[in-house]
């Protein structure tokens, strides 16, 4: 399983890529593997405010459903519209074409609660 080193990770298995004042969010390779085939994603509209640690959407797989948690606070600026017709892209490309939302970060980015790739690997039980 892949966990790109330039990303930060949450305990709830989201990844975030900070690009200046913006953050792009998705779910990890581990999460997509645990969920199985994804059939629906429910994401907020652009303009919605999201709060760090709060639920911002839902991801529905064939056999289970899971909440999505915002890694940072801010305002949704963009939503991946490809996921409407092809949610399976999240399984195939969780870090690339399976990205979910772009957030304009509120205030200075507080990355303190987020894990790096090595810490995330330990979190999911892959570490030594």
């Amino acid at each position, binding site marked *: 399983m892949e966990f790109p080193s330039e990303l930060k990770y949450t305990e709830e298995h989201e990844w975030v890529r900070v690009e200046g004042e913006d953050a792009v969010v998705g779910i990890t390779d581990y999460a997509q*593997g645990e969920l*199985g*085939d994804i*059939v*629906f994603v*429910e994401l907020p509209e652009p303009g919605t405010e999201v709060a760090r640690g709060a639920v911002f959407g*839902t991801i*529905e*797989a*064939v*056999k*289970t*459903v899971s909440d999505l948690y915002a890694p940072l606070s801010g305002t949704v600026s963009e939503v991946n519209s490809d996921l409407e017709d092809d949610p*399976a892209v999240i*399984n195939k490309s969780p870090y690339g074409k399976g990205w979910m939302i772009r957030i304009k970060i509120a205030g200075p980015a507080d990355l303190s609660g987020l894990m790096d790739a090595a810490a995330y690997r330990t979190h999911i*039980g*892959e570490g030594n």
Partner: protein
Amino acid sequence: MTQIAGRKTALYEKHVALGAKIVPFAGYLMPLQYSGQIAEHEAVRGNLGIFDLSHMGEFRITGPDALAAVDRLVTNRIVGTDPGQVVYSPMCRPDGGIVDDLLVYNLGETVLLVVNASNLDKDRAWIMERLPAGVRLLDESYATSLIAVQGPHAEGFLQPLTAAPLAELAYYRAREAAVAGVPVLLSRTGYTGEDGFELYVADARAPELWDRLAEAGAAGGMLPIGLAARDTLRFEMGYCLYGNDIDDTTSPLEAGLGWTVKLDKADFVGKDALARQKAAGLRRRLVGLAVETERAVPRKGVSVMRDGRAVGMVTSGTFSPSLGRGMAMAYVPGELAAAGTPVELDIRGRTATARVTPLPFYAGGTRKVAGKSGAATSAANQGPKGDAGAK
């Protein structure tokens, strides 16, 4: 590395080599999926899939009165079957609740019972306490593997590998045969709604049999199928899953399995309670629910509502790959069980609408009910009349 404990079937290394996602299930380490749940589900509906079901339990009942002894333990008719007949039946408690649902194989000299992995110890103890003198139970679960091949192309796939004439092996019949040179009990049964076979084989010969089947199936695109797809396939047929749709608090009459309850036969455990329940009328019934709200997927435990009041509960619910939407099996009050009855579902705080719908949800299955292809006689296959489920 995280270690998970569990028994391994004789085919465990095959699943690992195929890249399966392995999960604990009923004390075993089983393949949940290989290439993906939807791809596997669609392969069985449209082509061919191979399953490792070796976690199931097998009990051999021996003694001159074996058939009668089993007949007294289960609700369906066992005495009067001929060798080679397979019977799907619940096994009930005196109060009519279901201990397990199982397959009964009349094998002439002996009777083979095939039970759910999750109920293996419970069933063995239950049965052994109730066998008369001279009838014994031999637990063959830990020496027996079970491989299923299921899909519309199953017969054409398997025929070149066996001298047994498969066109003459009817649904719910079984016989000894050699498949790819390996002796098996060959059973025309399954839990998918498609045509197919279940092959009971000694553990020692299982890896060889799996390899021969996989080689023969490669050219035609046969896929290995995990437990996730097994569940969506059985769900689309409305087949009960013990622990979800049936358990020791549900009677077969409530669960839509009345066709398996033969109240006109000699005494069996639960007969009086079931006869009384039938006479009194069913207070609740297991029904199918077709969800109307887009993108709403009900899951086990979701409340069924009418006029804002909870009146029932979802026992199995999922996204149905063949139908492309969420569906549910649920207990509802008897008066709400008619097809077309509207209900509401409370799914994670949001209300979705649904209607009672006949089972099976999926009408295109190719299993050979009553000697005909299922798809051609889909009207005859509606509901559980004579159409069995098995695990």
